[in-house]
């Protein structure tokens, strides 16, 4: 009698077999960004039996995520994405080690967390983090599986595989803020990141198994409307790679389009600091803080551009101010932050600390 095993359908394949399944078990894969790309990638990697599976995301599950981030359900709303993913994946496969990191990848922590893994899957939605992952993967010689999309088109590639090209060989110059919109700016059909994310999981497994042709030195361009898929070859640019290895650490992208670093908490502010506050709420929302700039959506970009003071936008909960600051950043306003807390807490803080 043949005993039914979890990985029977893998093992039946000559290209995988018991040996291949053991390689999958030994593999350590980190998925950075548990969103539209990360969710499907994680599900397949957990199901496949990747022995150590990490997931990193500072964000909370929101209602508009459920349309494509299929690992989550309504019970997860308001909870951290990495921790929610961990909970669901544990139910899917209790035989693997799952590590959830409920915070953002930063220049301070990237070296430490990436060093624990063999392969990094890029499921991010911003260039700031993508270049950080890329540079750290160059420095530590880790394979990076890249996936990204725009509307109905996807891009997939495998970087740093056996001394192959990196993301910087493909796109050496980071785009300027606002040049490349992401899904939350322009919308996306749920299946699009689904397909790209599963492709990333597939390439990761092929790296682990040393199977077939990898997208190393190749950019797969998927068009979901026309079905015209194209594979483009590109070469390694040694100068780009040397620039990183010589520097010895990742080179930050000048235009930070990552929301996480835009947020500031009252605790982080000094009472002495001069701040230009901007209320992005409607006129009838309470409490009114009338002595602050009630500019909101009518704010003049020129006024902000010229401001020498730190600009901090606030609303009731820190959500609308985040969107506002994102827009301002894309217009090139640098010294602009979003308050994590709401108007009520700000009112208290102003009373206690400043007046």
């Amino acid at each position, binding site marked *: 009698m043949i005993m039914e095993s979890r990985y029977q359908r893998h093992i039946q394949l000559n290209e995988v077999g018991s040996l291949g399944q053991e390689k999958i078990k030994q593999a350590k894969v980190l998925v950075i*960004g548990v969103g539209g*790309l990360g969710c499907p990638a994680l599900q397949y990697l957990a199901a496949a039996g990747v022995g150590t599976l990490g997931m990193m995301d500072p964000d909370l599950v929101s209602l508009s995520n459920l349309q494509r981030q299929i690992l989550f359900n309504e019970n997860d709303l308001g909870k951290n994405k990495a921790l929610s993913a961990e909970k669901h994946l544990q139910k899917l496969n209790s035989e693997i080690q799952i590590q959830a990191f409920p915070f953002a990848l930063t220049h301070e922590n990237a070296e430490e967390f990436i060093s624990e893994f063999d392969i990094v899957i890029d499921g991010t939605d911003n260039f700031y983090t993508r270049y950080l992952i890329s540079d750290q993967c160059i420095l530590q010689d880790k394979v990076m599986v890249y996936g*990204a999309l*725009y509307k109905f088109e996807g891009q997939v590639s495998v970087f740093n595989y056996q001394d192959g090209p990196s993301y910087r060989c493909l*796109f050496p110059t980071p785009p300027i803020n606002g040049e*490349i919109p992401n899904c939350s700016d322009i919308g996306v059909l749920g299946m699009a990141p689904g397909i790209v994310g599963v492709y990333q999981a597939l390439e990761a497994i092929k790296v682990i198994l040393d199977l077939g042709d990898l997208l190393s030195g190749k950019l797969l361009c998927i068009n979901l409307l026309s079905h015209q898929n*194209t594979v483009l070859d590109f070469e390694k640019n040694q100068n780009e790679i040397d620039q990183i290895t010589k520097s010895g650490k990742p080179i930050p992208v000048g235009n930070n389009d990552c929301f996480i670093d835009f947020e500031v908490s009252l605790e982080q502010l000094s009472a002495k600091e001069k701040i230009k506050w901007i209320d992005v709420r409607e006129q009838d929302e309470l409490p009114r803080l009338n002595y602050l700039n009630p500019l909101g959506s009518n704010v003049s970009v020129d006024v902000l551009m010229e401001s020498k003071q730190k600009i901090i936008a606030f609303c009731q909960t820190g959500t609308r101010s985040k969107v506002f600051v994102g827009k301002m950043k894309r217009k090139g306003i640098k010294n602009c932050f979003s308050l994590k807390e709401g108007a009520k807490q700000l009112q208290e803080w102003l009373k206690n600390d400043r007046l």
Partner: protein
Amino acid sequence: MEIRLRYFGQLQEATGKSEEVLKEAFDTIGSLRNFLIQRYPQLKNRNFKIAQDNKIDMDSSPLNGSLIDLLPPFSGG
């Protein structure tokens, strides 16, 4: 010689086209890039790579392919 151009991602919106055929001759990839920026001012300061016959090439390379792809980086995840 005719060249067929395919625009990817946001470049379709910048040019208003997904494909077009050009009859002009270009020495290098870079001269094609300059021509396109003149023709579509929206492409100015855009970050995109150019591939000929399925190979991404440098602006200094001679243009001898017949299928040209123009690729911006993508963000969203």
